[in-house]
């Protein structure tokens, strides 16, 4: 400490000069006149041009961090956007279903699909309504396009639906201009056949098979499937009619249970 004081005393001229120069500079720079402002600007320009490469390096590093932060932000925004899109689609579907419900005379109960089970033994969905919503077994389940299946088992807040594509599923239908009776039998994927339609009956492509109403489960005139091909084999008693299921059995979000 004493050494420092001695050094300062010995070099007092220099230290005093530095002090005076700093004081003068402070007075000078505290002035807001135009020449001083311009001088400040010029010095800033010199400073940035001299230290340009250092700033460049610094900005490159900053850029890397900023990039990571922006990537994170983009990902978050994309997720939000996807969520919004999904909600928008869901909203649209629900609006359509609400419209369908109001137009239809049937007493419908809306349920949301909670899980899918596409095992080889049984094709089923689970929905989020059950006994607490006064549901019981064998109630028919539809979407806006047609029959989806029937309730297979009911729990308090959950029901399992046997889907129309299940191998054991059968439904009595009417088809053609004569409303001929037949049985819809699923075959593979979203296709099936109509059994029991006599060869004499006229069935055309794009004819819609609807529920017959003679069943205890399904009310009449609910669309089931659309004819995609039909041919008559002389060696068989009935027509071979191939149909395509109308209901969206692969991507349903909401379904109606008919009460």
């Amino acid at each position, binding site marked *: 400490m004493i050494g420092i004081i001695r050094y300062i005393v010995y070099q007092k001229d220099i230290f005093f000069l530095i002090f005076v*120069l700093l*004081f003068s500079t402070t007075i*000078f720079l505290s002035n807001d006149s135009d020449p001083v402002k311009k001088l400040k600007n010029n010095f800033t320009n010199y400073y940035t041009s001299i230290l340009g490469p250092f700033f460049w390096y610094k900005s490159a590093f900053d850029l890397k961090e900023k990039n990571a932060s922006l990537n994170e932000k983009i990902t978050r925004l994309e997720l939000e956007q996807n969520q919004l899109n999904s909600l928008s689609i869901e909203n649209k579907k629900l609006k359509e279903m609400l419209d369908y419900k109001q137009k239809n005379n049937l007493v419908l109960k809306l349920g949301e699909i909670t899980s899918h089970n596409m095992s080889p033994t049984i094709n089923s969905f689970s929905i989020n309504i059950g006994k607490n919503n006064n549901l019981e077994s064998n109630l028919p389940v539809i979407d806006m396009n047609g029959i989806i299946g029937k309730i297979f088992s009911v729990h308090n807040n959950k029901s399992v639906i046997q889907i129309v594509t299940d191998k054991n599923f059968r439904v009595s239908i009417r088809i053609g201009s004569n409303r001929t009776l037949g049985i819809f039998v699923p075959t593979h994927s979203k296709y099936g056949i109509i059994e029991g339609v006599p060869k004499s009956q006229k069935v055309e492509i794009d004819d819609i098979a609807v529920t017959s109403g003679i069943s205890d489960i399904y009310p009449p005139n609910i669309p089931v499937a659309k004819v995609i091909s039909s041919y008559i084999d002389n060696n068989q008693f009935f027509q071979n009619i191939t149909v395509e299921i109308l209901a969206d059995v692969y991507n349903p979000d909401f379904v109606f249970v008919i009460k």
Partner: protein
Amino acid sequence: MIFFNIIILLIVFFFQSIFPAIYFQSFKIYPDFLLIILLYFSFNNTRLASISIGFCIGFIQDLISEVELIGIYSFIKSLIGYLFGSLKKYDGFYSKKILNIFIFIIFTIHFSIYYFVKFNNIFDIIIFLKLVCINSIINMLLYFILHKIFPLLEKK
């Protein structure tokens, strides 16, 4: 002695303020009598005193003539006071001619800093050099005249 010095300083300030300007192109040039007086003061005082006197002269000069650039003269005059003080401190190491060259260089430094700051935004190197040279030469001539009447190193 101090009183005498203050009187001289006041006279020089007065003389500086009433002295007519010399026009060079569109620029006004004033001989800097205060710079000469600082030179004389520096050669008759210590280096620390030279810096102090330089700062005081510069500050008063700022208040009188350069309010827009207040601080510029106190900065330059302090620095020049230090340089004159150093010149005096090592007096005897060099001849009178060398001394005069050093004095001229210090004058040049003084006007270079001043014009660099003053005309920073309209910086033209030719005009800048001309102004610095003319000012330095005028002050050098003034110094020579004064030196003939009042020799700088009278005490020696």
